[in-house]
């Protein structure tokens, strides 16, 4: 008799719980009608950013394409008249990209960045492959003030030895002799 009473009580509790849930407001967010603002650092569509001077940040070092676990990034390095490296062409196959963000971590110039924008789905397979002009944006992304060439001691025609930020002019080692 005890057992039957216990069963009845627990059954009633269970049914009452589900009945209560029937009148709760669903948690569901109806997606196309309501778009939840995504966190700034969520990882989706990849962009190529520019430095504060408006020049391309990418120096075509191949680190992103090397670290990419699905090999979806490819490029061709080139050098312009000033001695700055750039990518002659840059291609990301979003059909393969798994949005892991390793390219962003590997990038020494903060050029390649992931954005929260994720609605770039298409039925046309060839449009899934983004070329350099599709990837380039006119801003600096998450780190707008960063300028790789202003800091790194890379020699170009625009800046020689000692011209970079936080860089002293080269020391004449002979003058250091006692």
């Amino acid at each position, binding site marked *: 008799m005890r057992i039957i009473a216990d069963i009845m009580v627990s059954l009633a509790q*269970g*049914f009452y*719980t*589900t*009945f209560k*849930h*029937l009148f*709760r*407001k*669903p*948690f*569901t967010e*109806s997606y196309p009608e309501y778009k939840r603002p995504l966190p700034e650092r969520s990882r989706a569509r990849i962009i190529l950013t520019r430095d504060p001077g408006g020049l391309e940040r990418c120096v075509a070092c191949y680190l992103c394409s090397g670290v990419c676990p699905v090999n979806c990034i490819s490029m061709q390095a080139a050098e312009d008249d000033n001695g700055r490296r750039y990518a002659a062409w840059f291609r990301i196959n979003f059909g393969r990209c798994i949005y892991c963000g390793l390219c962003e971590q590997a990038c020494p110039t903060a050029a390649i960045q992931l954005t929260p924008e994720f609605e770039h789905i298409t039925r046309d397979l060839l449009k899934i492959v983004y070329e350099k002009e599709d990837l380039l944006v006119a801003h600096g992304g998450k780190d707008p003030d960063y300028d790789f060439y202003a800091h790194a001691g890379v020699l170009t025609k625009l800046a020689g030895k000692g011209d970079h930020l936080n860089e002293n002019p080269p020391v004449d080692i002979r003058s250091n002799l006692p």
Partner: protein
Amino acid sequence: MWVWLFGYAVLIVKISLVLTVVLLLAAYLVLMERKLLGRFQVRYGPDRAGIYGILQPIADGIKLILKEDLRPEAADRLIFNIAPAIVAVTALMMFAVVPFGPELSLGGRKVPMVVADINIGVLYVFALSSLGVYGVTLGGWASNSKFALLGGIRGAAQMISYELALGLSIIPVVMLSGSFSLVDIVNAQDGIPFILLQPLAFLIFIVSAMAESKRIPFDLPEAETELGAGYHTEYSGMRFGLFFLGEYVHMQVMGALIAVLFLGGWHGPILPPPLWLLLKIIAVALVMIWVRATLPRLRYDQLMELGWKVLIPAALLNILITGAFIAA
């Protein structure tokens, strides 16, 4: 001659009416279940096709018909093909004996509001219900897949076990009304519905009915977490659709039987009798959905224990008590 033709015309009208309502209701029962289950789980359920998702059954139907009809290479072709039909047809045929209104007089002739008033209606329903087991078992066997076979075997064992409890639980009802005909049983409930006289029988019947229609606390034949999809694992397209349809029609038949045997059938105030029956079927379906949202699946031994050690003795006891009361 003309009278004879008239009878056939009325019969065909009744059959088409019942089939239309039953199939439409089955489609919308699926939607109702999905919506309600969604709300029970604090989400919306399907709401994309049409407003509130009312076109969802149509979209599902189109999808199922257009899907590729796959057949495993090692399957027994003939049996594999007819198994879903057995499930759907037996479920649909059970509706033939369900009365949905009082006798009408049409052109001076009495027209009973039932497709076939058989004097052994209850036995007919149970016979068809037993035949439905063949669809499940043969479908599982003919697929030539271990999961489907296991599902089919479980289906056979479960449905045969619970049919006993199902049959025994309504004997008191038959004793009270003195007839196996569903029409007479409904007429006997003119005053009070049998649920008030036979609450235990009602409880046994509804539990066994859920087991018979393989609803969730008793869905071992299709146990997704264990068997893929159970006996219809290898089915796709409209063949799977027929199994699905059969299941929901079976749910309706069980709802109709509960309404007819315990809730007074079409009896009810104000509203027209067929509507009352419909409302009662939907009410039973709602309870079944609620149960689905609440209870977890039974273990196999628990299932057998409940059937053989609890429901059947309780049903036998109920017969004994009812018999004592009737004799006294």
